[in-house]
């Protein structure tokens, strides 16, 4: 590029602006995208130009009220029963799974004493303690995650008072080519919240964002689902539940 002004603006500044405007093509574009992934200054220059052009659009483009049917269509796509990919997480099926765990096989496979755990809270609803209830400071929450339908996967999960989660495999292992994703399950009205993926090693440490961590409480459940490599593509569980357990205070 002989015609690029080189006197004042660093090369990546001008590239970042052109990229934000959608003016880079082909090789120039892939080269800049590669630069973005390794160069913090380039990524931050791009963020600045994006903010400037977005501000231009915010100031200059008139708001136009969309027709009401658009919101209806969006909500139908996201929330309708038919469109919901997570229907297997329907609470009835979920707790049926938990009940199935009381089999001696599951207990033996794990080798833990399961004192307070397998006590399904009956029908859903107000009898379930609100998981949002504040946990007294310093409380460690834990659960044994028991295998569902012969998955063979058993885990122990501890939540430290600072919110860090330690998940230890006590039975079973990773599935080659698939991911095992950890979810916080709060109740009927709240879709499961992803806590991250299990690593291949025996112990995985997860560090949920503070607003997610704040939702842990006695009575909430943690579950593991089978997902494509890299985790659920939709943000909601898509594969079968491999293991579940209800949180108790230690």
């Amino acid at each position, binding site marked *: 590029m002989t015609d690029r002004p080189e006197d004042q603006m660093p090369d990546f500044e001008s590239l970042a602006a052109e990229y934000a405007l959608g003016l880079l093509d082909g090789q120039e574009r892939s080269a800049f995208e590669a630069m973005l992934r390794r160069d913090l200054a380039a990524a931050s220059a791009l963020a600045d130009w994006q903010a400037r052009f977005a501000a231009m659009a915010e100031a200059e483009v008139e708001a136009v009220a969309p*027709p009401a049917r658009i919101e209806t269509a969006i909500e139908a796509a996201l929330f309708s029963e038919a469109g919901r990919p997570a229907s297997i997480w329907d609470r009835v099926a979920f707790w049926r799974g938990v009940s199935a765990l009381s089999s001696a096989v599951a207990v033996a496979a794990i080798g833990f004493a399961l004192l307070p755990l397998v006590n399904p809270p009956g029908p859903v609803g107000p009898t379930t303690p609100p998981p949002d209830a504040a946990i007294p400071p310093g409380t460690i929450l834990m659960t044994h995650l028991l295998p569902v339908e012969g998955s063979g996967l058993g885990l122990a999960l501890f939540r430290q008072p600072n919110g860090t989660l330690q998940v230890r495999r006590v039975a079973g292992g990773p599935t080659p080519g698939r991911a095992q994703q950890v979810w916080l399950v709060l109740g009927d009205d709240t879709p499961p919240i992803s806590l991250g993926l299990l690593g291949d090693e025996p112990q995985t440490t997860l560090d949920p964002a503070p607003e997610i961590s704040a939702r842990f409480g006695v009575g909430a459940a943690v579950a593991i689902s089978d997902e494509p490599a890299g985790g659920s593509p939709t943000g909601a569980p898509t594969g079968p539940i491999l293991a579940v357990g209800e949180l108790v205070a230690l």
Partner: protein
Amino acid sequence: MRADMTDHSHLEELIARIALRDRAAFSALYRATSAKLFGICLRVLVDRAKAEEALQEVFLKIWNRADRYRVTGHSPMTWLITVARNHSIDRLRAEGPPTLDLDDVAPMAAPGPSPEASAIAAGEARRIGACLDELPEARANAVRGAYLDGQSYKDLAELHGVPLNTMKTWLRRSLLSLKECLSR
């Protein structure tokens, strides 16, 4: 326009709640921002039916990517407008490779822009209108044409009746002046 429409912390809170799958927060965000975002989709795509489809897809994207908003380090309106603009531009140029999402761009280990840098960028951004006015009108319009009409260097060169390389030089100089004006 309602005063709270651009209320930074209110929108930020709504996006955080959407990341936790809060439907009421999603409805509230839709009410607060859909008209502006529909305006953007319509400005880029011109065709009303296409803009309506794009708006639906934009809000599905917002629902699905709300948990990654924070890594972009952007203000909420920057994030929302950029999602709407990039999605509309990608539809306009359906044959090309998609524009990277903001959260793909943030380097994995990067702490994101510092609060100070974000504040400076936000202050600069507010002045961009005045700085565009300092450019010769045709050049300011070339910037708008690229961002909002998806015009390529080739389109811009034809539109302004100049050779391609002249157009590139023009536009890069304009961007340089813009940056210089914004940082004064």
